[in-house]
């Protein structure tokens, strides 16, 4: 616990970091919108790649996962992994029915 509080104290990022991340998020949103005008395939690929990327940025920076220990990262990964497996197994029915 002590080790944690000290590491936290030195790692406080400033305003700039988060504003940069915000700009990137807006740019990604713009790209996503642009892709949706290009065509259906591009829109779907945009959805599948850029959306998780945006969510990842929010998780990693805004939600401070970058500055947390491995436990919280593991918690998030386990959750996302579980959802992915639920999804895959459901599609073993839906896709082959």
């Amino acid at each position, binding site marked *: 616990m002590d080790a944690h509080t000290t590491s936290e104290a030195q790692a406080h990022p400033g305003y700039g970091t*988060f504003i940069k991340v915000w700009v990137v998020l*807006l740019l990604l949103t713009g790209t996503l*919108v642009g892709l949706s005008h290009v065509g*259906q395939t591009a829109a779907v690929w945009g*959805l599948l790649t850029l959306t998780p990327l945006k969510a990842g940025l929010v998780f990693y920076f805004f939600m401070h996962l970058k500055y947390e220990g491995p436990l919280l990262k593991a918690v998030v990964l386990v959750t996302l992994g579980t959802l992915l497996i639920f999804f895959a197994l459901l599609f073993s029915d839906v896709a082959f029915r």
Partner: protein
Amino acid sequence: MTEHVHRDDFGSRLGMWLFLVTEMVLFGGLFIAYSAMRHRYPMEFHQAGAELNATLGIINTVVLLTSSLTVVLSIVAMQRGDKKRTIGFLSSTLVLGLVFLIIKAFEWSAKFHHGLYPNAPHLATLPPGEQVFFGLYFSMTGLHGLHIVAGMGVLAWVLYMVIQNQVRADRYVHLENAGLYWHLVDVIWIFLLPLFYLAA
């Protein structure tokens, strides 16, 4: 009870994250339902998605992303002991949340106006896939809206505690946790935008 107060900020954040796990899975269930239905009715989802006002959806995305930024900035300000800025950032988040809800209300009422709501006579004439699309649209954005309201409630409460100096530079885990919740609501919207508005 006059217990010795055991403080464990990391424990609090862990508890909050575990709560967020349940929220992620809650919406995850809806996303799974969405994908199963979209797989079944690709064309209908395409058609129905065109009915939605993408511009409003995009504006709302920008609003929410900015509100997320102000929350995280309020934490930076708090870490630097800058109470005034903390209050300023938090208040702007609340205002942005309100803006989001107002835009959402306009959007919903337009849909109601066009008879595109569950159990509407007009909707019943559309193909089944489009009915499901609007069923999902209202359930998911509605539930998300409820989370926005809840998040604003939590942030308002934290704002009060900041003003009262109960949340301050040496103990601000409440602020962090409220922020985490708000960011998660933002993340959910990040997924809702392409699924509904840009699907077309």
